[in-house]
């Protein structure tokens, strides 16, 4: 199993799907961000798996994975900062209570 690319990819897909569910279903903004991190990690796993099994991509895949991690970090920083800022205004971390754009 460890020698089949499909296993890693399905695993990555599963992780991504779980992340999607969390993003669409949770009320807390921070939960949503955590779900996003899960999604990013799922993608990262796929990239690394490709790098492992396909010769052409070997060192590049890892580089890409590293960069993804870096960007994810940056995004998490800013996202969380925004959530904190909004929390200061609304006193609630629940996204369905941020509905001033509602018709």
């Amino acid at each position, binding site marked *: 199993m460890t020698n089949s690319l499909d296993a890693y990819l399905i695993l990555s897909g599963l992780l991504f799907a779980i992340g999607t569910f969390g993003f669409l279903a949770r009320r807390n903004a921070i939960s949503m961000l955590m779900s996003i991190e899960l999604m990013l990690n799922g993608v990262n796993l796929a990239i690394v798996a490709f790098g492992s099994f396909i010769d052409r991509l070997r*060192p590049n895949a890892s580089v890409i994975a590293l960069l993804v991690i870096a960007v994810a970090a940056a995004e998490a920083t800013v996202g969380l900062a925004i959530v904190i800022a909004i929390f200061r205004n609304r006193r609630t971390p629940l996204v369905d209570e941020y509905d001033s754009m509602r018709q």
Partner: protein
Amino acid sequence: MTIPEVIPIVNVRWDDILFLILATVMIGSALLVVILRDIIRCGLAMMVCFGALAGIYVIAGAPLVAATQVLVYIGAISVLVLFAIMLTQTKAAPARLVFQTQAVPAALAAVVLAIIIALAVGSTDWGAAGTRVRTATDALAKVLFQQYVLPFEIVSVLLLAAVIGGVFLAKRDEGEPL
């Protein structure tokens, strides 16, 4: 003494078992992240998930990425998340609903998504080699600092910007409560 490739009695390979265990842990903790009511526990589950994922990176032959995963994700991002959780706590938090009204369609979407990905993956011939090959660190270093040096630098600027931005956004004004 080298570890034998196959576990004696059950005739299963080590790495397979390891992979299975780590995969289970990862998926399990991922599920906990999205299901648990208490967000702090979610955060902790996330850390476990990242750890398991790092292990899978090792098995897949990308030790540097695994190390970076541990350092950055578990060491920095997860901590950041936990801090944010603590900063946005409200008293009434546990009593409320965990899920949105659209949780069911969301679950459905997630399941369908997983199935589609599985189908797509399964029906594609990746032209991959039969076994996994470890990434050599010096090869990686060469590529990183020759071909990808520009993205590397840009990412560092990006991180700088993110840090400054984050600090500014989350700054407390005079007299505002935490």
